């Protein structure tokens, strides 16, 4: 094994060891560090005295250097890890005292060796130990100096450099430089004492540099790895002061400090005690308060001085002293356990206040009592009790059954008294029925439905769900009652499945019966309706057929209407033309005739004596013609007027009309005897003036055509003609040939010559038109030279 390998192993041990230390628990770690540092210190000077390793020809490292280097590296790491002034202080103190020990030890040994030459014939040992003393003193001083330097420089660097890598590298440089300085200073001092040993001990500046670099590497790594621990460090002036301050003063200071802490704590607790929202009383064994807080005074209505002089047990209500809770609490206290009991305590004003009293043994003979005023809670509890009483009352007055049913145990938990009305069983009966209650009471059919459909619903129901079902249950008297339940989940088991249901049960028997009856009636009604509907459908079908027919008819009618409208329009036009024509005839056609007749007459009047007789006759004929023409116009206008004249059908008496007509026609009959016979003429409906015109024309004709007959007779009457009744005017005049009867009533038709019977041929046309307008019929019967009968019918009065 080469020297270099051995050297390497040693450095490795020195470097790794502090790392191992750093992983330890705090207390152990500190102890480890101090032991290692002590060992290094103890062996450092000694090793330096006994060997030196030539690394190369020019580099030599002494054992002392190795030990002190390791010491420095370890101490620096330790300080950096602990971040505590006391660590540095302790390290420095350790270095100091160990070195003092070493100096004494070496001095003693070297003194002994000096005197005992036997043991050391060459006296080299003496030299070694003497130099060790020197080295130890020097080394110790340098260590302390260097530690200060490290801390100082590190602080300064840390303040200025935030990058941990830069900081670590710089710090390593410092470490190496300081150790090298050591390598310069130490020989400079040591040479003056023993030049022989220098080569062994020092190993040269280059050796120092080599060693320092080797030791700095673990520190470098450490700084990078544990850089988070470097956040705060020492305050140097404080450190210096701390180093030299006397331990006694520090102790006094610490006691004072503790005292202050205690006072602060006492103050805190006192404040807590006084301001607590619960009442606190500390009692002695005789139940006399030693200490009470404000709240306790408030609760009990005493001031603290009064309260401190009262036996607390005497405040407890007599009844409460007899209670089970109280006795149990006393038992607990005797065993040294804490208790909590509710008491009524008498206040100063004599009222009792409900409190919850927690008692705990503080120490021998002292009891801590905590009082909570529970008036509010009691009030709420009472209110709750009232509410419950109200609920119970309400439930029992409800006609519906209110119940709670446990679906797991299948028993009735609660029922109000209405159950007795609905099912005939008392509440106790129901609750004693056990877990077969539903099966026993429910109708078997309904029970199947219940088990199959309702029960599964409970399992999946949410709290707000309402489950409704109808079923029958047997009344105590054996009747089946129809019931309607509305239920919801009342209580659940720990894992959430339903346990109890709350239900409201209504007796709907009457309703169901009514509904059944209604349904039956409804069915009957529906049957009837169906029957009627069918009948109606048939009718509708018929109606539709009829409608179709009507539709066709309507179409026909419409087309007829259209053509009728056209015809009507044409008729209107024609009528308007006729009116204009009539007007013109009436006004203009007569004037010329009047002129003809008038001037003919004037001619006769003024020049009659100068006109030949034949001419006079011609003038007469002119006059006659004009007058005939005038008559014709008058008759024609009368005929045309019939179409436009207003026409009113009223009750008329033909007998009266005939009487009037005969009177008017008297002048016509002058000159010949006519026997006129008027028969019975029943009243009828007609327009009096027009019917009068009919009689004028017919009687006028009869008179005219009997003018040349002997024993002329005219019969005016009413009677059976064939199978109908008709009015008639009969004469025994000239009559006419029935061959021409169809022309008789046409206008301007004449069956006799004007020579024999004057006339215009309009009279019968007028008769026909008037009768037609009355809705009657006119016809004639005649025989030439024997006479003629003119018949006409008029609507009878009752026909309207």
């Amino acid at each position, binding site marked *: 094994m080469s020297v270099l390998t051995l050297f390497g192993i040693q450095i490795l041990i020195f470097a790794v060891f502090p790392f191992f230390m750093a992983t330890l628990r705090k207390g152990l770690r500190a102890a480890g560090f101090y032991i290692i540092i002590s060992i290094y210190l103890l062996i450092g000077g000694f090793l330096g005295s006994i060997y030196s390793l030539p690394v190369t020809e020019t580099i030599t490292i002494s054992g002392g250097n190795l030990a002190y280097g390791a010491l420095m590296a370890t101490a620096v790491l330790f300080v950096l890890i602990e971040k505590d002034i006391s660590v540095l202080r302790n390290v420095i103190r350790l270095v100091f005292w160990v070195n003092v020990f070493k100096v004494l030890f070496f001095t003693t040994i070297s003194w002994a060796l000096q005197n005992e030459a036997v043991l050391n014939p060459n006296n080299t040992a003496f030299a070694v130990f003497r130099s060790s003393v020197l080295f130890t003193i020097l080394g110790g001083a340098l260590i302390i100096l260097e530690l200060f330097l490290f801390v100082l420089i590190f602080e300064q660097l840390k303040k200025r450099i935030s990058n941990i890598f830069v900081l670590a590298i710089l710090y390593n440089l410092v470490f190496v430089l300081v150790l090298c300085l050591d390598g310069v200073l130490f020989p400079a001092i040591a040479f003056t004492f023993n030049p022989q040993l220098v080569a062994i001990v020092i190993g040269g500046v280059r050796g120092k540099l080599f060693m320092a670099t080797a030791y700095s590497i673990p520190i470098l790594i450490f700084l990078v790895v544990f850089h988070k621990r470097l956040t705060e460090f020492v305050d140097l002036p404080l450190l210096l002061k701390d180093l030299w301050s006397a331990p006694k003063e520090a102790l006094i200071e610490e006691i004072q400090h503790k005292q202050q802490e205690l006072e602060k704590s006492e103050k805190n607790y006192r404040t807590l005690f006084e301001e607590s929202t619960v009442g606190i009383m500390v009692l002695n064994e005789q139940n006399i308060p030693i200490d009470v807080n404000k709240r306790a005074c408030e609760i009990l209505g005493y001031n603290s001085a009064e309260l401190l002089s009262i036996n607390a047990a005497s405040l407890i209500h007599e009844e409460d002293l007899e209670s089970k809770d109280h006795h149990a609490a006393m038992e607990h206290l005797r065993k040294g356990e804490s208790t909590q009991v509710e008491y009524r305590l008498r206040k100063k004003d004599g009222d009792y206040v409900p409190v919850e009293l927690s008692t705990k043994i503080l120490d021998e003979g002292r009891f801590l009592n905590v009082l909570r005023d529970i008036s509010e809670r009691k009030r709420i509890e009472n209110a709750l009790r009232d509410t419950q009483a109200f609920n119970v009352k309400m439930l029992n007055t409800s006609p519906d059954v209110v119940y709670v049913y446990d679906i797991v145990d299948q028993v009735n938990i609660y029922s109000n008294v209405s159950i007795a009305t609905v099912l005939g069983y008392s509440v106790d009966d129901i609750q004693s029925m056990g877990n077969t209650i539903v099966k026993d009471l429910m109708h078997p059919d309904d029970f199947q439905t219940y088990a199959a459909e309702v029960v599964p619903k409970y399992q999946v129901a949410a709290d707000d769900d309402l489950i409704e079902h109808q079923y029958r249950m047997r009344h105590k008297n054996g009747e089946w009652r129809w019931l309607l339940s509305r239920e919801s989940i009342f209580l659940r088991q720990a894992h959430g499945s339903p346990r109890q249901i709350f239900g409201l049960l209504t007796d709907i028997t009457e309703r169901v019966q009514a509904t059944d009856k209604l349904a039956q009636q409804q069915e009957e009604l529906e049957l009837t309706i169906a029957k009627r509907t069918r009948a109606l459908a048939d009718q509708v079908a018929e109606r539709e057929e009829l409608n179709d027919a009507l539709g066709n008819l309507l179409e026909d009618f419409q087309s007829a209407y259209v053509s009728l409208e056209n015809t009507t329009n044409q008729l209107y036009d024609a009528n308007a033309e006729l009116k204009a024509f*009539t*007007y013109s005839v*009436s*006004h*203009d056609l*007569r*004037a*010329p*005739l*009047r*002129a003809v*007749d*008038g*001037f*003919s*007459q*004037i001619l006769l009047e003024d020049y009659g004596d100068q006109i030949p007789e034949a001419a006079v006759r011609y003038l007469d004929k002119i*006059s006659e013609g*004009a*007058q005939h*023409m*005038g008559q014709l116009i*008058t008759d024609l*206008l009368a005929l045309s*007027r019939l179409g436009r*004249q207003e026409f009113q059908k009223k009750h008329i008496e033909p007998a009266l009309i005939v009487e009037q007509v005969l009177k008017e026609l008297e002048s016509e009959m002058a000159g010949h005897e006519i026997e006129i016979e008027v028969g019975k003429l029943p009243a009828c409906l007609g327009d009096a003036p027009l019917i009068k015109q009919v009689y004028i024309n017919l009687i006028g004709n009869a008179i005219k055509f009997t003018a040349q007959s002997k024993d002329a007779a005219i019969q005016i009457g009413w009677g059976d003609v064939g199978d109908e009744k008709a009015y008639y005017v009969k004469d025994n005049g000239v009559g006419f040939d029935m061959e021409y009867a169809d022309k008789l009533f046409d206008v301007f038709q004449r069956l006799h010559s004007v020579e024999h019977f004057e006339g215009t041929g309009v009279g019968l046309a007028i008769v026909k038109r008037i009768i037609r307008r009355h809705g009657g019929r006119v016809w004639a019967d005649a025989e030439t030279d024997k006479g003629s009968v003119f018949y006409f019918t008029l609507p009878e009065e009752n026909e309207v």
Partner: protein
Amino acid sequence: MSETKNEHILLVEDNPNDEELTLRALHKHNLTNSIHVVRDGAQALEYIFCKGEYADRNIAKPPKVILLDLKLPKVSGLEVLEQIKTDIRTQSIPVVVLTSSDQHPDIQKSYNLGANSYIVKPIDFEQFTESVRQIGLYWLLLNQPIG
């Protein structure tokens, strides 16, 4: 026909033959001493209301009777009648409708408008003369007008 003369009869007639026959009939019965003839409705209105050609006439001296034909040029006889009978100054003048028409609507309207008589001119000259005579007699001699 002097304007100052008190005219007894106003004859409104467009047909000269009828006019002549009427005048002859009146004359025959000595009733023609004061007759004024106008030949259409417009002229008749001017005469009666003293306008136009007759602006100088005094409306306070109306004819004693007006013989009015219905079928007239320009303004019909019925319109003339209506104006006479709706004007408070003239409504008291007797109006005799003297016309060929025996049509019921004409007669009805005439009376509705306030005609005092409705006479159908007969074609027979004798009858015509008689009618005119009676009109003259009644309205000029027998009838007592207002005032």
